[in-house]
């Protein structure tokens, strides 16, 4: 390479050499290169080194993977699919859990607040003697609470047992799924061929 600096046409000639090695040199350029190399030692040395590298590569056969490669790829694909299914399943379960918890909390809050508002209105004479607006608002809240409490109370009295059963079973199923997701996480084993 150092010697190539001695040749003013070195850069141009090596471009031709590279094309020649790929069989992409036309006859006029080939002739130009050959003529140049007859008199230029630096370029001749460069050409020999380039040709030597090309010969080394051409003699070196392509290599194939170790046995069982395809099977290992198939296993990783399967693991990946399982992982995806579990992720989507986990998201569905999380959404379901949050909805169930939210609905339960909302129902309990309505029941408790409704009863409280109802009792408060009934046992507060000062409120009943207040201004007309305050009285109307308090009366509305009290009636709403009373209505909600009566509705939920009636629902619990009529269908209490099946509701509690469904809620219990739902919670058990969700707990089971959560435990499975946390304990049996995918990707515990790697199939990189050398396991």
């Amino acid at each position, binding site marked *: *390479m150092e010697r190539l600096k001695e040749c003013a046409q070195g850069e141009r000639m*090596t*471009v031709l*050499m*590279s*094309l020649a*090695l*790929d069989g*992409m040199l036309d006859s006029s350029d080939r002739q130009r290169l050959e003529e140049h190399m007859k008199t230029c030692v630096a370029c001749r*040395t*460069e050409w020999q*080194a*380039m040709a*030597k*590298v*090309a010969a*080394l*590569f*051409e*003699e*070196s*056969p*392509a*290599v*194939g*993977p*170790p046995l069982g*490669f*395809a099977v*290992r*790829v*198939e296993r*990783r*694909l*399967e693991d*990946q*699919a399982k992982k995806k299914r579990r992720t989507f399943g986990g998201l569905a379960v999380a959404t379901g859990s949050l909805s169930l918890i939210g609905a339960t909390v909302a129902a309990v809050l309505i029941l408790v607040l409704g009863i409280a508002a109802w009792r408060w209105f009934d046992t507060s004479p000062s409120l009943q003697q207040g201004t007309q607006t305050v009285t109307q608002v308090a009366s509305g809240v009290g009636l709403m609470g009373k209505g909600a409490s009566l509705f939920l109370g009636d629902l619990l009295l009529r269908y209490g047992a099946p509701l509690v059963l469904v809620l219990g079973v739902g919670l058990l199923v969700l707990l089971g799924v959560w435990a499975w997701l946390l304990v049996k996480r995918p990707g515990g084993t790697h199939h*990189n*061929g*050398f396991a």
Partner: protein
Amino acid sequence: MDQERAWIEQALQGDRTAFGHLVRAYERPVYNLTYRMLGNATEAEDAAQETFLRAYSKLATYQPHRKFVNWLLSIASHHCIDRLRRRGRAPQLSLDGPLPPLWTVSDKPRPDEVASQNEQRERVREVLDTLPSEYRAAVVLRYWHGMSYQEIADTMDTTESAIKSRLHRARRMMARELQAA
């Protein structure tokens, strides 16, 4: 070719067995590329596996006018270039690591032949290691996969003149390495 198209269609429907046929059909060129790029059998296997996993997940983006093997080699070369960049240095030469089998093993080679082949493979690896990752990919695709300049350019998402220049510079660098040795 029709069989290949059928496997691709089936794999697109989620048939992993059909994709397994594609893996068996093209495991050799893909592995050869990753091995030549990374210079290490263990890492080459991992990169080749990763190539097929990516191909499976991106199969819907494959355009049938392209050769399927070239599409796979494109994924593999980009993945190897990324790995080499992350590595930030030339690949570690793990002489203790297993050497991959040759494609053309007819009879059991004699011990001296094995030694000579291993020596040759080491030499190839040393020469390739002197190249930046983009140059290395161009050289491997040219010599071991017989691609034209245009095919290499398509595979590496660049221009034909860029490939011509990379091959020229790579050859000069490798010649320098050989002269220095």
